[in-house]
């Protein structure tokens, strides 16, 4: 049986050669993402801005204008609607009621549910949540802090274990990935809620994994080819790991595509974000973190005195046994 081979043997693509163009592209995209986030803003879910969110399932896709006018007529303030899934499901978002009465939220939810059920026969409620402003502030703070410290932690670890350039380049690349993901959400206006934070964490996780694999190969080659120029060495490393990069990302993309198509609307924004994250994470491994190593002046044989402390270093001493 002939096995599938996506990347031909001895592929040698000059990735590093076009790194200046890539840098420009990266810079452009990053600025664009930032601009989008600031200009358009994220479509924050109630988790982060506080408020009430009610999800209703209708018998058939409802005319949004009518839904909007029905709810706005109730006098609870401006509503934001969003169609989900097969367009039968609509999320109604409202600000928290001004009344401080204890069951004001309940009354509001009940009123909306009743109004929608009366106007659109067959509408059933599927989910609602309310978050107070205080809790949502904390959620934002905690989420950002956890992500930020995770990035710092990885940078410090890479720096202590290897050369400082690896720490910086990895951190910069991951920040780039996060910004891209945020830009994606600003562009598509998918609801950005706590589940999406999990998606962002997954993107970071995948990206770390990808960078570590290439970084590891770069380090291996730095020990092997002490005289080679850094650009060539990175090209070599990226090309050597290319079959793995392609294979892994294609496999994961396959799985994610299945989730995107058949996984239901709750997971949709989430899956889309992860697919984007894989593309971005793979790109940034080559054109942000690896290319940055050259800019930061890493050279083969740099700090040769640093002892080899890699985890499996001891394994070499175990003599091969022909089995």
């Amino acid at each position: 049986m002939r096995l599938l081979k996506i990347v031909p043997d001895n592929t040698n693509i000059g990735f590093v050669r076009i790194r200046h163009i890539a840098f420009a592209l990266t810079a452009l995209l990053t600025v664009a993402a930032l601009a989008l986030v600031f200009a358009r803003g994220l479509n924050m879910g109630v988790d982060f801005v506080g408020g009430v969110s009610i999800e209703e399932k209708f018998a058939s896709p409802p005319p949004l204008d009518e839904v909007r006018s029905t709810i706005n007529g109730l006098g609870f303030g401006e509503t934001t609607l969003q169609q989900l899934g097969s367009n039968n499901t609509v999320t109604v978002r409202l600000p928290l009621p001004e009344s401080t009465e204890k069951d004001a939220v309940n009354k509001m939810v009940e009123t909306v549910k009743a109004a929608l059920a009366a106007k659109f026969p067959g509408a059933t409620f599927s989910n609602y949540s309310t978050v107070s402003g205080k809790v949502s502030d904390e959620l934002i703070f905690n989420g950002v802090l956890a992500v930020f410290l995770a990035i710092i932690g990885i940078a410090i670890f890479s720096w202590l274990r290897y050369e400082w350039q690896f720490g910086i380049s990895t951190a910069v690349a991951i920040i780039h990935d996060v910004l891209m993901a945020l830009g994606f959400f600003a562009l598509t206006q998918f609801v950005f809620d706590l589940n999406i934070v999990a998606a962002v964490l997954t993107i970071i996780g995948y990206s770390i994994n990808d960078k570590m694999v290439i970084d590891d190969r770069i380090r291996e080659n730095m020990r092997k080819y002490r005289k080679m120029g850094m650009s060539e060495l990175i090209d070599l490393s990226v090309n050597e790991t290319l079959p793995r990069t392609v294979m892994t990302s294609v496999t994961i993309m396959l799985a994610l595509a299945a989730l995107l198509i058949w996984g239901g609307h709750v997971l949709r924004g989430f899956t889309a974000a992860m697919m984007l994250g894989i593309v971005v994470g793979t790109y940034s491994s080559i054109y942000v973190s690896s290319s940055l190593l050259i800019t930061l002046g890493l050279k083969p044989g740099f700090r040769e005195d640093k002892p080899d402390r890699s985890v499996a270093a001891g394994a070499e001493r175990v003599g091969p046994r022909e089995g």
Partner: protein
Amino acid sequence: MLDFPRWKRLTIFIGIGIMIALSIPSFFPQHMRDQWPRWVPKPAINLGLDLAGGSYLLLEGDTSGVAGAKLEQMKEQVRGEMRRDPRIDIGDISVQGGKVGFMVRDPSKVDAAREKLLAITGSGAGTTGQREWDIAVVDTSRFQLTPTEAGLNLKVDEAMNDAREIVDKRINALGTLEPTVIREGGSRIVVQVPGLQDPSALKKLLGKTAKLEFKLVDTSVTPQAIATGQVPPGSQVLPYQEGGGQIAVFRTAMITGDMLVDAKQDYDPQTGQPRVTLQLNGAGSKRFAKVTQENSGKPFAIIVDNTVISAPNINEPILGGSATISGGFTVESANELAIALRSGKLPIELKVVSENTVSPELGADSIKAGITASIIAIVAVIAFMILTYGRFGIYATLAVTINVLIILAVMGMLNATLTLPGIAGFVLTIGTAVDANVLINERIREERRRGRSVTQAIEFGYKEASRTIFEANVTHAIAGLIMLILGSGPIRGFAVVLLIGIASSVFTAVVFTRMMVSIWVRRNRPTEIHI
């Protein structure tokens, strides 16, 4: 690298066998697991509310009330203690600006008073030994008692613990629900009730402090005085429930909730109206009998959470210690009040700060869609792996499958809850598990290309790839640990799955597949491999 002695192989197989066995219960629904014999261990993953449907409530205790209560309590304590000693004469005790203050009339008695205060303010709070109160003397004879941070925290902590228990009791009293009630952080309680679709009754029940008091009505106060609030110092104006106006009552409570032994909803035999019947304890019964004897013909206000429920006239002395509250109840509201009274007074006022209710249908849809998508994804990944790596692809597939089962088993043993973010962690873990196998197989391909022999290529492939896998996973685990420690709710759920997955994917990719390959190589001594 390819050397696996028999005992090692056995250990690995048995270990994996146990893990697979432990993952099985998670595939069956709760009601089926319950029917299994008792001796069968059945660790299973709980489905989070976002998947199973149900209500999530985040309650926050009003800690400012705790400080107030602590000050009032101290005021009473000071009054009692100082009164007991005739030598110490003090002025009015005030509670102001978070301090209890009073004046000792005779400055020479300041030291004696301080002695007394030291005795009643306690030697230290908790295990840290910090004092609960700061005692200061200003203007030579004026005492100021300020609760310390540690003292307040201790009080809040106690109050929250009690509140958690009461919340648990109240929800359980509602019937067949299986709630989880846990404390979160300093002043919050998380309530999760699977299957509950309409949490409004629950919220009403938890919103009640259920402070029960019986107070005599001050009939000397005119309606005009009530309206302007000009009442004698010993009386206060309280509102009637549901817009029934206001009424003046004496401040001193004759009967309080702590004298209660039982409260239940029943019906008034004469009118058929729902009502709440209370049973008082011994001391309460005596007190109630005495008060009703002395105040026959006068109205007696029954007050819950500073709202007057009703104020019936005392027709005759009530001797049995049994009292009833009737006042326009529905069966539900009477039952709610009975539950609230029975479970005791909340030591702290709770507010719902966040809530989320997912209908079981949506949860079921999510699970169904998730399972369909997962099966398709798994089939696609398996096909792709086998097409690409042949025999090694089969090993990789086995490894990834075992990896999933191990994660399920460990999560089951930890009694962890699987939520949507957890599924994200799962997807990522499977991704890295696939990646670990890809790394190994690609490396073997590479080494073969460089002209190494079959055994050497496998040998080297595993060695070099293992290092990379370790590097990547250690870094990944650091990120996971930071998220676990710092993150809240969903981020945590994600991190738990991630950390378990990192450990098991390294094991299955590096140890398990290597063993499988080594067994195959020993048996067949291949001179060429298809990879």
